[in-house]
């Protein structure tokens, strides 16, 4: 969906998201939908495009908007992808429609003379998003489907080390399902490659406000001091360093997290 929102388009940096109110003015739906931004364009006064699947009453309402309808949207929100200071070889890994968040990033990396290699992975061909764009803008583009219905047949974790080797990747960026992000983070940290992941999907599932007031979108993250804290995906993320996230503990409060059942009783601050 493309909306005219010049103030959002102007300030947007790749990796950020928008929080959209769904259901109309007299809505019975109170939670905002946090949606990653696919692209912003200066034309028509500044447009913002985002991709979502219409799989609940709120997003179905959103999908049924017509041109010139007004939309209640807050953005750009969240922490964007940090960019390398010097030209680097960047590997952009997108899982299913999560890859929509990577194309604006690719443009920004290009402007910094970075090499951009795409990997798009999905269970089936129809879940691959942006294969043509990736081919067009990427220095290379690899499509992987589990059943071989498009590109290479196989599982991303098996194929990734080879791709990292071939592209001589200095940095990895990933967006998509948390299972894929976890696998990518594991491989990247084993190889000592910096890895930034976008938790857009987790935020989409758990977020209700998008601006940090409801604290519903939390996940356990290890801070600079080695302590685990529950941080909010919408304001401390949605982009985080892959190796800082306690992937196996998503959806739990680790016993040793700050304020958790067995944490040392210190007066550490909650936010990293």
């Amino acid at each position, binding site marked *: 969906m493309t909306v005219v929102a010049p103030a959002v388009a102007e300030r947007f940096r790749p990796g950020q998201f928008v929080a959209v109110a769904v259901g109309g003015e007299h809505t019975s739906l*109170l939670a905002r939908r946090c949606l990653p931004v696919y692209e912003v364009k200066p034309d028509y006064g500044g447009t913002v495009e985002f991709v979502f699947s219409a799989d609940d009453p709120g997003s179905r309402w959103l999908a049924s908007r017509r041109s010139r309808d007004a939309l209640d949207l807050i953005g750009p929100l969240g922490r964007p992808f940090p960019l390398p200071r010097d030209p680097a070889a960047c590997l952009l890994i997108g899982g299913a429609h999560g890859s929509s968040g990577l194309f604006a990033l690719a443009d920004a990396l290009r402007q910094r003379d970075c090499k951009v290699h795409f990997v798009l992975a999905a269970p089936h061909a129809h879940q691959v998003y942006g294969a043509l764009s990736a081919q067009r803008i990427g220095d290379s583009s690899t499509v992987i489907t589990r059943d071989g219905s498009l590109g290479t047949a196989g599982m991303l974790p098996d194929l990734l080390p080879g791709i990292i080797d071939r592209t001589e990747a200095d940095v990895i960026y990933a967006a998509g399902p948390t299972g894929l992000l976890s696998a990518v983070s594991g491989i990247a940290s084993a190889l000592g490659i910096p890895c930034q992941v976008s938790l857009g999907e987790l935020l989409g599932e758990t977020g209700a406000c998008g601006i940090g*007031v409801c604290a519903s979108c939390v996940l356990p993250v290890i801070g600079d001091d080695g302590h685990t804290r529950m941080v909010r995906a919408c304001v401390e993320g949605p982009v985080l360093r892959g190796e800082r996230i306690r992937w196996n503990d998503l959806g739990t409060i680790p016993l040793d997290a700050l304020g958790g059942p067995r944490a040392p009783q210190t007066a550490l601050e*909650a936010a990293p």
Partner: protein
Amino acid sequence: MDLSTRIGAVTLANPLLTASGCGGTGRELSPYTDLARLGAFTTATVMGRPRAGRPTPRIAETPSGLLNAMGLPGPGLDAFLARDLPWLAGHDVSVVVSVGGSSVQEFAEIAGRLAASPAARPIVGVEVNVACPNAEDRGRMFAASPAAAADVVRAVRGAIHRDVPVLAKLSPDVTDIATIALACADAGATGLSLINTVSGLAIDPATLRPALSGVAGGLSGPALRPVALRCVYQVHAAIPELPIIGGGGVATGSDALEFLVAGATAVSVGTTLLHDPSAPQRILRELEEALAARGMARPGDAVGLAHRPASAGPQIARPRTRIEEFS
């Protein structure tokens, strides 16, 4: 219009407050709402120690409402005093601090440290969240028993300067909320905050399991409003002189007016902030218009009007019909 309203010895610039736990630390809300123009900003419930709360999913969407089971997450009192309260003071925000504890002792300690803190200047009220589970009573809410709620109120009242209002925030999940309210008033509460969420449950249609990690959660938003209005009405009827901060699903100025006429002296906005963080200023403007349209000069003119006998209400001239005309 003079929008100011009084809670005990304190005068608030206007009757609109944020509800506890729905405005973050204030910083998150500040780009959308001018916090200095609120009657007061209410903090999330502050506990003694850092608490991670419950895992996600913590919020589920329900018809015209939200269900939340957060587990009272927060950085604890030290971080609140060192970081959040000074920030609010620096931005000229009037602050109601919501305090919680798992024992009467913990409530008293937190209140005492709050009162002694050099950062206490912006505090215009202390809200006692008696919906906390009482560790000394197998996790039963303090709010469920008049005696336990009163004990907590008395402990906090004793620790806080007498000019600072102490407000007991009650739960609607009780047989007779007026009894709890009376017990709190007797224990020294300056006023009441009505209401906290009502317990509910949502099922995830995909997994066929409870949607929240905490299984049951608290229902908030417009779905809660009739319950909240009933509580405000009942308590005002029982103790008309006691100030009440009414709230539950307030989203418009007209909603706010409903709470005033039911007996509230001020109104809190909670879940609406998650949906529309810029709502408070709009609601306040709408409330002002709603009062003016009825010829009222101040919010106080509306308080408790719904309790007048029907004959005292505005007389609407209806053409009289004689029975005979139909026969």
